[in-house]
């Protein structure tokens, strides 16, 4: 059976979640691998969530926020951007492919972009194969 990755995604309430909703109301089809968690702002997303998702078996993590300058809370998305880069560096050190984590800006009108992003991310993760964090952690000696 083909590997079907699981991607946990954190979507900000104002732009990205609405964008994802728009993909739905516009009946765009995309890969089923993305599971959405709603946060008020991408600025709420912290490393713990990302690590936890991998630890629980996610193969990829996607964070979406408003485009730079559009944040409903002014600058939350920039805070997320800063964290994102540090997390990526850390993931790399931990032997987790950086591409498993992705930050993207999705506005409320970008339903299509969200759908494309979901497909794209799924493809990327498929090519990376399953993330082993969970398995390894459970079999530590």
């Amino acid at each position: 059976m083909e590997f079907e990755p699981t991607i946990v995604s954190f979507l900000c309430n104002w732009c990205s979640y609405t964008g994802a909703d728009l993909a739905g109301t516009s009946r765009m089809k995309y890969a089923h691998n993305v599971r959405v968690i709603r946060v008020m702002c991408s600025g709420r997303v912290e490393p713990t969530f990302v690590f936890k998702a991998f630890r629980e078996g996610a193969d990829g993590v996607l964070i979406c926020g408003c485009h730079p300058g559009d944040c409903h809370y002014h600058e939350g998305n920039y805070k997320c951007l800063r964290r994102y880069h540090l997390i990526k560096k850390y993931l790399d050190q931990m032997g987790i492919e950086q591409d498993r984590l992705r930050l993207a800006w999705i506005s409320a009108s970008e339903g299509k972009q969200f759908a494309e992003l979901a497909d794209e991310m799924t493809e990327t993760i498929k090519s990376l194969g399953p993330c082993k964090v969970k398995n390894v952690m459970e079999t530590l000696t």
Partner: protein
Amino acid sequence: MEEVRIGVYVCWCGSNIAKMVDVEEVSREVEKLPGVVIAKDYKYMCSDPGQDLIIQDIKKHNLNRVVVSACSPRIHELTFRKALENAGLNQYMFEMANIREHVSWVHTDRAEATKKAKTLVAGAINRVKWHESLDKRHVDIDPATLIIGGGISGISAALEIANAGKQVYLVEKADKIGGYVAKLDLTFPHMYSGKDMIQPKIDKVMNHEKIEVFLNSMIDEVFGYVGNFEATVKAKDEKEIKFGNVIVATGLKPFDPSGIDNYQYGKLPDIITSLELEEMFINGQVTKKDGTIPKNIALIHCVGSRNTNYHEYCSRTCCMSALKYANQLRSALPESNIFNIYADIRAFGKGCEEFYTNTSKKNVMFLMYDQQNDLPKIKKAGTGDNCDMIIEMNEKLSGEAIEVPADMVVLMVGMKAHENAKEIAHAVGISMCGNEFYIERHPKLDPVATTTDGVYIVGTCQSPKDIPDSVTQANAAAARVLATINVAHMEVEVTTAVVNEDVCCGCQTCINVCPYTAISYDEEKNVSVVNEILCKGCGTCGSACPTGAIRSRHFTDEQILSQIEGLMSMQLQI
């Protein structure tokens, strides 16, 4: 913690969900999850019978948490929250799983879609276990309003509010109100009288029973939060005032052109600013310093504006003022030669383009220059020149380097933020853009509010603008104030951040993070304190807190981490 008793409801949404998701299987499966007391599926959860189903179950099964798995929470979260309230349950004991917009409408494989739906519901179930009751909170609004600045904006706002019978305190730094508009002879584009326009308003404000005017006064610091501010008016006698809203209308300061070498302001006698010319018109005589009448008059636009060496922004009114002056000069000195040295004519207001057209018919010479890179140079004329000064410039419309004769040069100085802008910003707790104008809450949809609830900015302290635009803004702020006063209390966000003082170490990392300055540092306790009235609940501080002392209510670490666990556990079971 009380025993968790969750009811789960899976919606068919007609066939919208049911077509792509086996809703019955979903409800069957999730019923097995720990904490779930009952799981049901129903055609239209959002319909009245659907909501009734939830309400009945809450009562019957003593549920204390509810998960609805249906469409986007952006559509129906409020609906179901209300249903919970109706059943006597706190509305935050609810979570929604979006299996329509995020599942049935976007996927094509029914098995996979069903699987995904189950995981989403499991996530919601896991999350809702950690939900806590949150109570809507209100603050009362003091019906009085403080207005800082007695220019046209402050006056207009004051009248708008006071005319509705509400108390206004108007604090003005100068010894009279009226601001710059009171110093205008005529207004563009209709050449109405500035004085006739504002004088009745000034009189009204000064005699209004609902307006208390403080002249020669300042505000040091405003304490409190929306609805409940207080401050001391510093004048000869200090006075404590209490108010519910603040309107900041501190206005502008004209740009000082003496820093621009090319323009020789202050060095040659008949180089004046637009304000000095305005005064001449009010006094009925436009003359040179020596008392004679100027033959050649040049008006240079964009002085201090649209030039990154001074101010990058456009001052919005100078073009039209310059055109107005051209008209006034043409009337007062019919024989004079008038030169408008401009960059772009920005005649955008109602009736303004027409005014520009009419002005150009009055034998006014328009010369275009590059306001960023190539400023005209004013120099003293020679003996044979037949004029006092020569302006050397590269004219862009002809491409020629030309000389313009001038006996008087009027510099159309731009607007700057008021010199007290910074102090006032501190006093009332609002922020400024790079150029000391105040930042509005949203540049498009909320141009008069600030990120501080209850504090509004109107007129030229927000950015340069003309009289109608200032008046409009003033009235807009008045609307906001009147609305809150009318309601008398304000609902504040409950999903705010809260600091666990037992953990907070006082590192103050969070303070800069907050865009609403809702967090302050309590020196005595050495902890940060969230003002929950100012907090909008974005959660960014919670993520920035290195100790985990800040909890973002309704988006706590436990809730989100459990949701992740839920999402993934169901995933593995299947």
